């Protein structure tokens, strides 16, 4: 039993990390209807910038602050240079633009900081919490718990921002109907810039967490692809969906690996999430928390 709980908890905590990445997608999608393929590259860029600065002897807070500023600037620039001129283009055009953008970003970050992998330490050891393993014989990493906590706080703040403030309301309004938003005097560009800046910030948090877990390397960009099944499960417009989707994907892929894996020779973990997502698409294409689209005929 304790083994089951351990696997489940490990999965849930890994799921939180997926949610972190998925959150970046949701923000942009909610506000502008763009599926931002470059979110993974933003995560990579953030982590690489942060780790490179710390390796050059900057202290933690300073490096974090500077990286944050860099992410905000990059976010705003992307909105200005790439997406603003493409307003009102069909979604496929925007998707292609962000795919192109993702490769440019990866190239630029490696040009700036080099392409060798880095290790990243936050001073929180990735070791099991002692009393848990002694008392219940359950091994849960301290770092995983910390990451989950950070993600939780981030989500709470974002949810509050979206639901309770004028900016949040303006964001939702813009997402809902551009024309109407303009007519009530909401500045579209301003709002989009804010969204991209916040997405940059979320990418930074995700990048640092993933960097500690797996090292800062090119493969980080692929973690973003793990956000896809999460989004399909949770719905593209929902912050809550990103969280719940992440938890389900994280837990189920770990459980599948441990309990189903042996029967098929292992290696389920890498594709099980996509299998769930596919099933979900057939049953509930809008996701758990997505808005059901009913067309009037």
């Amino acid at each position, binding site marked *: 039993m304790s083994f089951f709980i351990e696997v489940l908890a490990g999965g849930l905590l890994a799921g939180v990390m997926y949610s972190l990445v998925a959150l970046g997608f949701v923000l942009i999608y909610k506000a502008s209807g763009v599926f931002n393929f470059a979110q993974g590259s933003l995560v990579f860029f953030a982590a690489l910038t942060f780790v490179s600065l710390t390796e050059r002897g900057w202290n933690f807070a300073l490096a974090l602050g500077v990286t944050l500023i860099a992410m905000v600037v990059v976010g705003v620039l992307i909105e200005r240079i790439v997406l603003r001129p493409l307003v009102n283009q069909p979604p496929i055009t925007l998707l292609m633009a962000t795919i192109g953008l993702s490769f440019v970003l990866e190239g630029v970050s490696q040009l700036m900081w080099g392409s060798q992998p880095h290790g990243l330490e936050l001073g929180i050891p990735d070791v099991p919490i002692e009393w848990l393993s002694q008392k219940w014989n359950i091994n849960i990493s301290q770092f995983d718990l910390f990451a989950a906590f950070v993600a939780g706080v981030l989500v709470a703040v974002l949810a509050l921002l979206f639901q309770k403030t004028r900016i949040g309301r303006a964001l939702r309004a813009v997402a809902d109907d551009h024309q109407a938003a303009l007519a*009530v005097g909401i500045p579209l560009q301003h709002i989009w810039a804010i969204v991209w800046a916040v997405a940059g910030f979320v990418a930074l948090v995700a990048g640092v967490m993933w960097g500690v877990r797996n090292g800062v390397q090119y493969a980080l960009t692929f973690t973003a692809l793990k956000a896809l099944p999460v989004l399909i499960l949770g719905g593209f417009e929902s912050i809550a969906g990103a969280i719940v989707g992440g938890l389900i994907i994280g837990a189920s892929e770990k459980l599948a690996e441990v309990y189903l894996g042996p029967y098929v020779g292992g290696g389920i973990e890498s594709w099980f999430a996509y299998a769930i997502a596919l099933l979900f698409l057939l049953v509930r294409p809008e996701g758990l928390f997505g*808005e059901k689209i009913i067309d009037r005929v």
Partner: protein
Amino acid sequence: MILAVEGVSLSFGGVRALQDVSFDVKEHEIRAIIGPNGAGKSSMLNVLNGVYRPQKGKIAFRGREFRGMDPRRAASLGIARTFQNIALFKGMSVLDNVMSGRNLKMRCNFLQQALWLGPAKREELEHRRAAEEIIDFLEIQHIRRTPVGRLPYGLQKRVELARALAAEPVVLLLDEPMAGMNLEEKQDMCRFVLHVNDHYGTTIVLIEHDMGVVMDISNRVVVLDYGRKIADGTPGEVRRDQKVIDAYLGVARA
């Protein structure tokens, strides 16, 4: 004179939506724009709040002349509007829709709001009060938490009016506020429009198809046909105008 349009022409490719249209709107009046389908009424409204920029002519608002508006500037000057086919934020509650109408009145910056600091909170509450007042006034208290997309058409129209009013506009542009409503809903809407005009002193420009409504509530009427102004005057004058009668009933062209 609060709003004046001078020699406005607007065309889309080869289609001339408006040709040399001029008229004015006096402070505190209810001004109707009428005309058969395709006469250019909605285009005119879209020029007034800057969705379209006319190729020729200008718009004057309180003596300031503009070659063309843009929607945001119009909003900040105090011109609010509703749309013919309802442009509400469908996923948001009635209250949030109305609050979004107060967007331009709120001042706190992003950081203050993100951190939910004192001023942001106070501001939010203050505007909430104003929004609730409008909600009460339009008698939509019972649905304020309902997502707008779930409401019946008539109520959506009313919510859209509420959102426009939330901006405390000087001029309110209404694009067919009573279209598709039943008699009772129309009467309610008329009552609200008159009350807004009376109580808040808001100048109203409205497009409406229901002649009964137009004749009853408006002070002056502009009649458009094929993008041109064919008549302008009090409801009584317009009703007797031969050109208007021809436009509406059709004449046999020899």
